[in-house]
């Protein structure tokens, strides 16, 4: 079977014909590309959090049962969150450490809304393990806060990284006091 080499750029009326077709080709291609982009978006967006997942994006926590010196762990968006009712000593130490050498510089008052309540995401900022320190019998590291057993990161009473491989302080999630005894996280 002989190969046909019909030239697609055959003149259809001289210069004018060619430029007209080129413009049409360009315009059609442009519209086609836009259309393809618009068509691709629903597929990508379908992978974003769905409405039912977003509805569970916030959790309310009752603080009234947490005594001074106690910590509880709640689940928020699938992650553990430490809610600690700090003692006077812990608060004082945290404020004193504002002037210590910090790996990620942050003042304690930037990390709390009411100083006796520390709300932090219990996920080590190194590689994601859950630090120990919630229970009274847990090791708390050299700075009185939390200690991550995976690679030895030490966090202080404000949840700041003080020693070890973690690069950042324990994350403070968005939260608000609905009333004196309840916070809403997320």
């Amino acid at each position, binding site marked *: *079977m*002989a*190969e*046909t*080499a*019909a030239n*697609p750029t055959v003149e259809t009326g001289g210069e004018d014909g060619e430029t007209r077709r080129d413009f049409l080709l360009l315009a059609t291609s442009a519209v086609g590309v836009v259309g393809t982009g618009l068509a691709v978006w*629903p*597929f990508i*967006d*379908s*992978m*974003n959090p*769905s*409405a*039912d*997942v977003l509805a569970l994006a916030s959790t309310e926590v009752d603080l009234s049962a947490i005594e001074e010196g106690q910590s509880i762990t709640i689940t928020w968006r699938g992650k553990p969150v430490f809610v600690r009712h700090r003692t006077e000593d812990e608060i004082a130490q945290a404020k004193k450490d504002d002037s210590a050498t910090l790996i990620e510089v942050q003042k304690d008052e930037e990390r709390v809304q009411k100083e006796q309540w520390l709300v932090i995401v219990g996920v080590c900022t190194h590689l994601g393990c859950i630090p120990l320190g919630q229970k009274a019998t847990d090791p708390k590291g050299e700075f009185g806060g939390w200690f991550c057993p995976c690679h030895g990161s030490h966090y202080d009473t404000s949840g700041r990284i003080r020693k070890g491989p973690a690069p950042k302080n324990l994350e403070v999630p968005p939260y608000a006091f609905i009333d004196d005894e309840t916070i809403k996280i997320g």
Partner: protein
Amino acid sequence: MSEVNWKNPVIKWVDSRLPVFSMMHHSTAGYPTPKNLNYWWNFGSLALTVLVIMILTGVFLVMNYTPHTSMAFDSVERIMRDVNYGWLLRYLHMNGASMFFIVVYIHMFRGLYYGSYRAPREILWAVGLLIYLAMMATGFLGYVLPWGQMSFWGATVITNLFSAIPLVGDPIVTWLWGGFSVDNPTLNRFFSLHYLLPFVIAALVGVHLWALHTVKSSNPLGVEMKTEADSIPFHPYYTIKDLYGVGLFMIFFLAFVFWAPNFFGEPDNYIEANPMVTPAHIVPEWYYLPFYAILRAFTADAFIYLPFQLLFITPKLAGVIAMFGAIIILFFLPWLDRSPVRSAKFRPIYKQFFWLFFIDCLILGYVGAKPAEGILVVVGQWATLYYFAHILVIIPLLSKFEKTRPVPDSIASAVTKTAKTEEA
């Protein structure tokens, strides 16, 4: 195959190690296609378009679907209500299935009309039939997944058919079910197979195109390409024509998706599967209806059952054999049809029988949709008989005795002779 001299050094480097670019060129800009193809030739590329849409939407649907009887129905509703654009993905997939069959049926009827199955395209035709069989399996499996009433009862009816096989029928059905009725094991394995088969279809499509490129396209005249004057390169002529066809098709397809998304469906499938309640009328999806009619036509008192009765075959088994047989006999068309002329364009008698056959298929579809009562019972039996008569008797007879019209020498001579575009 002429060698392409690539100017771009990167392309040259890649191509000399893996000839992707040469292959692309060989199948498009360097591929001779008859210059007289009409729009009935668009349906192959449309079928490929729909296959891609089905696989894409399917993969994204699976990200949110759970194939367990306790969660399947609800997971589909979660897709419809909570997943971003989930309703769009679901309706695209659901209506895409119907579109796939509409496109493929037109594609097949094109083949029947123009003699596309004739030598040297027997294998091309056979691979096409394999694709069709795989599509029917895929569609059946997929319809079970939403776990609605029709999902469950359609699965029950069709899997029960296998019990008609003598001796090993019942063990086979138990094996298919993975239990003693359609239940969770069945749903899970149907899910696995439904995900698998489309890729088998994709591979078969590859073989289908390979076979096509070996023998090249036929054309409305049924006269093979002989000289350069008969052909034009696939690219840009048919690439743009196919794109235009895709545009028209998408308008048709999306009209259903956005404004009549449940037109092809059954309301009963919006009721969760209940093994204790059988719906008043179990109906398969529309694209199975003609075969459903053939299956049901073989009752103990049907006249078409007689030959099977003589062979000690039960009516149920007769129906199953006839149903599958209706597709199997199509494989033999290239040998049943021995007419010296390929295309119905030059076969005035065959042309009329073609349309009668088409109407017969519509009648079978209608009978399949309705309850097997009243006059429709007899109509179904005669329509079934006619179906087989057309393929097994009429076509061979016609091919021997029909007085055909004179066929043009070449495409080029035919095209220059007529002023207007050839009509199908």
